[in-house]
């Protein structure tokens, strides 16, 4: 096994002052050679570093396949952006290109995972002889290759840096006036090339206002030149009274120019028209408080009263009749008659045949000089009733 390192510097065609440091580590195995290229060996933290791994078959008697990737680590993040493959007969060549963002200051080991898969033409032919209903696996002889890590010397960022890269900020506020608790929409967008600007909190959630936010909308495209990202923060502010939104200052650092800069949203004043709190107050409980409904008792009692009133009215007719019967006004009238003439008048008015004898006696007394005692006639009449 032999190792060679190559440094190259490339001037950017657009005139930007960028010098890429390219380190190439060449390794040779029994069946293939490989090299690792890196555009800078001393990047800043969160600065995009382009890493390319090239694999080239040297044993042309076999069919050779590779399984390669970077190993995950909390010290960096990476993104594979390209694979170039030259599939010549028994001479495979593959290049893997990654963007690596170191997340730690100091020495960062970028580690690899590589498996060599050797097979024969017969095995390949056999695997192709199947169809979709009869898939035949390719039989390979796998060999894990331990690659030494790529060591990056990561430089620290200036103090207080929140964004790394070349970014621009714009914001949009639909209106600065509203009624109490009316949502006032606001949108902030950060766009540029660099480490994706994952700022969790732009403004405090509450102060003398309330902030409602959505999850930031992120659009990101990674190329060899870096990652171009647009992050949109949509939010709405709400307050009871007028309030002032403090200025937003995000400190950023551009590693290409090695300069600090600030993204700024100036102080914003919002006028809120206070509303009558009595109107805002929801006087009705919602959902309604649980109250045991006893209204059916009232309804039942009202029906009962109506029923009883009707029932008693019907009965009262009987009672009246009984009362009348008990009272027997005719008997009382006969008893109260003080003269023969009065008694005659009472008996005549009744139109009862059974009083005929009494009437005759009364008339005889009144008009024919007979003298039958009133008491006796009364008694006789009362007996007839």
């Amino acid at each position, binding site marked *: 096994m032999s190792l060679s390192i190559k440094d190259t510097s490339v001037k950017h065609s657009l005139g930007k002052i960028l010098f890429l440091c390219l380190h190439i580590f060449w390794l040779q195995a029994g069946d293939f050679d490989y090299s690792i290229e890196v555009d800078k060996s001393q990047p800043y933290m969160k600065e995009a570093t382009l890493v390319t791994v090239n694999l080239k078959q040297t044993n042309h008697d076999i069919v050779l396949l590779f399984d390669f990737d970077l190993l995950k680590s909390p010290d960096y993040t990476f993104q594979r952006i390209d694979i170039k493959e030259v599939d010549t007969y028994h001479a495979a060549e593959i290049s893997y290109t990654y963007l690596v963002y170191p997340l730690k200051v100091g020495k960062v080991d970028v580690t690899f995972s590589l498996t060599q898969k050797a097979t024969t033409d017969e095995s390949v032919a056999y695997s192709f002889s199947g169809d979709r209903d009869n898939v035949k696996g390719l039989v390979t002889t796998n060999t894990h290759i331990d690659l030494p890590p790529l060591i990056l010397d990561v430089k620290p960022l200036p103090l207080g840096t929140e964004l790394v890269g070349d970014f621009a900020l714009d914001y949009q506020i639909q209106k600065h006036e509203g009624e109490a608790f009316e949502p006032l929409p606001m949108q902030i967008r950060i766009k540029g090339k660099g480490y994706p600007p994952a700022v969790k909190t732009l403004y405090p959630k509450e102060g003398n206002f309330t902030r409602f936010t959505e999850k930031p909308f992120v659009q990101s495209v990674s190329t060899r030149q870096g990652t171009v990202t647009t992050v949109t923060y949509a939010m709405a502010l709400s307050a009871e009274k007028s309030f002032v939104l403090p200025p937003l200052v995000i400190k950023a650092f551009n590693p290409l120019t090695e300069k600090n800069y600030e993204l700024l949203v100036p102080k914003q004043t919002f006028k809120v028209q206070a509303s009558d709190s009595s109107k805002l107050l929801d006087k009705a409980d919602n959902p309604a408080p649980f109250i045991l409904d006893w209204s059916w008792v009232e309804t039942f009692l009202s029906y009962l009263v109506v029923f009883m009133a009707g029932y008693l009215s019907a009965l009262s007719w009987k009672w009246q009749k009984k009362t009348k019967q008990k009272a027997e006004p005719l008997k009382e*009238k006969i008893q109260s008659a003080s003269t023969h*003439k009065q008694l*005659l*008048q*009472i*008996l*005549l*008015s*009744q*139109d009862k*045949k059974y009083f005929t004898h009494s*009437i*005759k006696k009364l*008339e005889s007394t009144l*008009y024919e000089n007979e003298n039958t005692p009133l008491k006796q006639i009364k008694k006789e009449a009362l007996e007839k009733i």
Partner: protein
Amino acid sequence: MNQKIDLLKKELAKAVIGQDAMIEGLLIGLLCDGHILVEGVPGLAKTTTINALSQALGLDAKRIQFTPDLLPSDIIGAQIYNPQDHSFSIKKGPLFTHLLLADEINRAPSKVQSALLEVMQERQVTIAEETFKLENPFLVMATQNPIEQEGVYALPEAQLDRFMMKLVVTHNSEDEELEIMRHVANKSFTEVKPVIDIQALHTLQEEVMKVHIDAELEKYIVQLISATRDLEKFGMEEVKHCLMFGASPRASIDLYKAAKAKAFLEGKSFVSPSDIGYVIHNVLRHRIVLSYEARAKGVRSDEIITKIVETLPIP
């Protein structure tokens, strides 16, 4: 004269058991040339009584069952064309009789009722251009069924006034009904024979007219009738709302005549207050019109009459 009345009553008793009030009412009507309206359920010997009365008096009796499709010509009679000699002849209706039982008069339409009631008043019938006087006596006993109210034509107050008396016929007592049952079962009712002829009846009518009535009682009668028209005036404020209309002058006349007839039937030559008291309910009960309020409260016209008699002092 009372012997004849007693004889007549005895003869009637051969065919009619009980129903003294109806018989007495009929006799009063007969003696006063009045007509009688009888209210009672079927089967209370109304037809039997009329037939028995006609037989006992040797009079002609007919019965008309009033129905909704009855026509005036059905009771009055009509002019009939004779095709053989191309002439018209008069066919007299059942009205041409002495005693007429108009059964269920309220079942006939008002034009038939009017035809009958006109004849009752005028006592003559005009068919085509010929007028026929009805024979004397002419007594109509009309009946009304108080139970059925469907399909009936109630007699208007003006026509009810033509009836001298309205009798309310009730069922016989249990003893009387037992006797009726036995007689009918054994067919033991004997034939009613004429005991009085028309001439004798006319004599009785003249005798009734001769019955003396004191001037005080005449005033009493007028006061009784007046009281029906103005209850408040006679101190009956508590029942003044019960009457819509009082009795007509025809009521005074009929009460006067009925009281005389009653006195005559009692064998008296003069009218006493009791005679008026006996007939006043029959004479007035169909002539006074109760108010809606009174009818709603179930007040009967008899109760008002009782109140009037109770209130007005007798002479």
